[in-house]
């Protein structure tokens, strides 16, 4: 909370509020007589040097009256807030200490009173209690109480489920003690915050009532009353309106800004990361390839996360990209599809043409994306059929009936039972595996040449994973589409892919045939990854193989091999010079100074 007050907004609003409080204390003493001094020779005068905001109907100085009115305006707001908190907080705490039935009744009452408009309650009380400041304070206090009660109730309920309250219940400390010792102290901060905002609201609301003539009554006056008196003469002395308007807005703003600054102080702030240097890697460029990526970089100013990735994909091929989380494999995939956030550098060509120059339509039909979590990647508000058909409607100009027919066909090809029924359903009505099939079917709508599947099985059950993998494999064989399959799971990649790229800290460190993974990996990191895959035959008396240390944060990577600190084979050179991808045999490339054999 204290930190929040050091922000400019927090400090400024707190200073303004303190200023108002000081004004409320001293203004009646300093300017009280001037504000009350009737001067029949200067009635309803416009602003002048003697009376900057003019005079009122009895010749009294408007500026002095606005300053003096600070006391009543603030006092009434504070009183109303005390009433609101005094009723609302105990009432909201009731459900957490009452038995179940009592809690229900209290909740129902809070529900009802929250729904009732405050101003009407104020008018009701003004009728019953008689028009005046007392009715206004009570009305606004009572009307604000439900929001206090609701907040207290929600907070107390969240605290009530916590371990320390459960522990206190176990030792049976008694309900009252539970409330005063365990619940209320833990929710005090948000309550204080709400009190600040509620006081601002009360000030505005009571000013409104006084403005209507239902609040402060003559000879007393607050800002609302002054505004009410000045409004009919707005043509003659607009200055008289200015004083109360500025006072009300400034005070309301001060309370609210302070409340917001306090609220923001409890929220976390993102930390910026330092800059890192980078050097793009050289690329091999065979012709006739489907996809060619060279020197691809993705950076979030100033940190470079993907640092010069080069790769090629031949038509119909299944290429795996493996790496730990944070290695940049997903961003590489997004950058290939022109979907990456941040700034992207390097060249990506599809059939020899730069993807940046491709039209929406060409990109939309030739490259398909399958994302990790089908639960969040399908639009929850749209029917399945709609989400599939729109690809063809938009890119091929197909009429809806035709697009729907194709969608049905694609759903069948991903082996979804009763596709007609599924078309009319929303994503939340499908199982996880079925949703991922729908995502794949959606990708197939445009008959793509390249399917980029970003961890498509990570969010699914193991048995469903196998089905999806077999499906991708079959689809690639049937349609001739190439697949880039991104995963952190070595075993899955080895089973599905023909070729594998291993990424570490934003770079490709090794590229090899999947068949060579077990016996032929040359990079120590690849070997460590392979070794850390447990199988059923693993000796369970031995600890699981792990790689010591952790992968570096993108901002921590400097010159040298990023894996060197975790590498058993690293030499002095590894910490100084960055290894580039080098050919190692016909079908293998490795970025390592000491490749293993």
């Amino acid at each position, binding site marked *: 909370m204290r930190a929040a007050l050091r922000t400019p907004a927090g400090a400024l609003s707190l200073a303004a509020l303190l200023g108002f409080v000081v004004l409320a204390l001293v203004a009646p003493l300093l300017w009280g007589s001037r504000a009350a001094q009737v001067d029949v020779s200067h009635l309803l005068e416009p602003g002048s040097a003697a009376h900057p905001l003019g005079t009122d109907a009895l010749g009294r100085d408007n500026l002095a009256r606005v300053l003096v009115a600070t006391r009543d305006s603030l006092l009434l707001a504070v009183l109303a807030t005390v009433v609101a908190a005094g009723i609302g907080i105990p009432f909201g705490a009731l459900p957490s200490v009452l038995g179940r039935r009592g809690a229900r009744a209290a909740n129902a009452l809070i529900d009802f009173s929250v729904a*009732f408009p405050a101003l009407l309650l104020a*008018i009701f009380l003004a*009728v019953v209690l008689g028009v005046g400041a007392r009715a206004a304070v009570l009305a606004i206090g009572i009307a604000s109480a439900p929001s206090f009660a609701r907040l207290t109730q929600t907070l107390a309920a969240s605290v009530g489920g916590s371990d320390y309250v459960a522990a206190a219940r176990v030792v049976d400390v008694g309900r009252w003690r539970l409330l005063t010792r365990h619940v209320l102290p833990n929710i005090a901060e948000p309550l204080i915050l709400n009190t600040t905002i509620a006081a601002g609201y009360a000030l505005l609301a009571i000013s*409104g009532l006084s403005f209507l003539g239902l609040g402060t009554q003559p000879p007393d006056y607050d800002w609302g009353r002054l505004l009410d008196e000045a409004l009919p003469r707005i043509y003659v002395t*607009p200055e008289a309106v200015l004083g109360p308007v500025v006072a009300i807005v400034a005070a309301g703003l001060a309370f609210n800004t302070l409340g917001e600054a306090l609220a923001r102080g409890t929220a976390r702030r993102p930390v910026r990361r330092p800059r890192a240097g980078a050097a793009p890697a050289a690329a091999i460029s065979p012709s006739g390839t489907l996809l060619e990526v060279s020197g691809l970089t993705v950076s979030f100013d100033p940190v470079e996360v993907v640092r010069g990735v080069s790769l090629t994909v031949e038509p119909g091929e299944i290429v795996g990209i493996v790496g730990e989380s944070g290695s940049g494999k997903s961003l590489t995939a997004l950058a290939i599809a022109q979907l990456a956030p941040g700034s992207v550098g390097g060249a990506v060509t599809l059939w020899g043409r730069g993807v940046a120059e491709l039209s929406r339509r060409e990109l939309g039909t030739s490259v*398909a994306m399958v994302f990790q979590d089908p639960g969040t990647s399908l639009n929850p508000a*749209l029917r399945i059929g709609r989400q599939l058909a*729109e690809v063809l409607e938009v890119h091929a100009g197909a009429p809806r009936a035709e697009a729907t027919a194709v969608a049905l066909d694609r759903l069948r090809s991903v082996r979804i039972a009763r596709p007609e029924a599924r078309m009319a359903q929303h994503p939340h009505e499908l199982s996880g595996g079925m949703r991922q099939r729908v995502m794949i079917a959606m990708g197939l709508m445009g008959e793509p040449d390249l399917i980029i599947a970003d961890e498509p099985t990570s969010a699914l059950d193991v048995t469903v994973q196998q089905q999806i993998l077999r499906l991708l494999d079959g689809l690639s064989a049937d349609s001739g589409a190439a697949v880039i399959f991104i995963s952190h799971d070595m075993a899955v990649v080895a089973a599905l892919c023909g070729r594998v790229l291993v990424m570490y800290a934003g770079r490709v460190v090794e590229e090899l045939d999947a068949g060579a993974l077990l016996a032929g990996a040359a990079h120590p990191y690849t070997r460590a990854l392979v070794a850390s895959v447990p199988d059923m035959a693993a000796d369970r008396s031995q600890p699981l193989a792990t790689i010591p240390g952790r992968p570096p944060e993108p901002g921590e990577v400097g010159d040298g091999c990023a894996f060197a600190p975790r590498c058993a084979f690293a030499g002095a050179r590894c910490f100084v010079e960055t290894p580039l991808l080098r050919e190692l045999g016909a079908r293998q490339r490795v970025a390592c100074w000491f490749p293993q054999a």
Partner: protein
Amino acid sequence: MARFAARRLARLVVSLVVLLVLSFSMIHLIPGEPVRAALGPRAPQSLVDARRHELYLDRPVPEQFTHYVSGLVTGDMGTSLVSNLPVSQVIGERLVNTAALVALAFAAIMGLAVPLGMAAAILTRDGGHRGVEVAFTTGTGFLAIVPEFVLGVALVWLFAVRLGWLPVAGKTGPSSYVLPVAALSIGSIAALARIVRVEMLKVLAEDYMRAARAKRLPARLEYLRHALPNMLTATLTIGGLLLGGLVGGTVLVENVFAWPGLGTTVVDSVVQQDFALAQAVILLLGAAVLVINAVVDLVLGMLDPRSTIMAA
């Protein structure tokens, strides 16, 4: 859905009954002699007695209540103590004037806040356009705090007094609607636009929006078909709350602009101690808010099958 609707309607009925009892009991809660207070200290006792008889105040309380309710059912809301006219006649046209203000303000709020908030979100996504973000949050934050009646006075001063473009007060023609509707809606537009922006930013960061971009849809479809429906529930929930709040807001705004509606009527009646009239207007406005809230809940329940409102 049917069960939810039944429960929500049952809650509405209970709320309305409570409101009815409150408005009925109002005249009995007033200390002293309300009829004497309304007619003045010098009114002859015979007149006070006659008026009490007309108002059924000389009968037992249960009989008064049944008379009150049966009167309401037939549209008879009693007689004004001050003007001696039937309350329903006094209220009639004023009800239409107030409803017009509320409807126009609500249309302005939904029509302006949603595109404003969406545009601000699209411009400021991923930390872009910092200047726009600061201007937007500061501007809307300020406008959302300024109360309707202060904003109304400021608008009168600028557009009616200084510039002379629009009438100062009263209901004279189409142009006389502009300032009251603006005063009533601007704060809510700012508040809702802020919420729409935050909701839209949340939606834009969702995986399904990335999937929509992967389909290379035109911006219009991406935002209107894929994003808008997903922030509609939150927007309409807040919009519904604001609609209820507008009913209270008209009381203040009408008094700034001397608008011949229920808001000016209820304040005048309270000041003149015309309890029969005040009672009727409070009942009407309160019922309007309760019905609006219930309708909003039902509409939301129908629009979004997964709505959390149903669970509450």
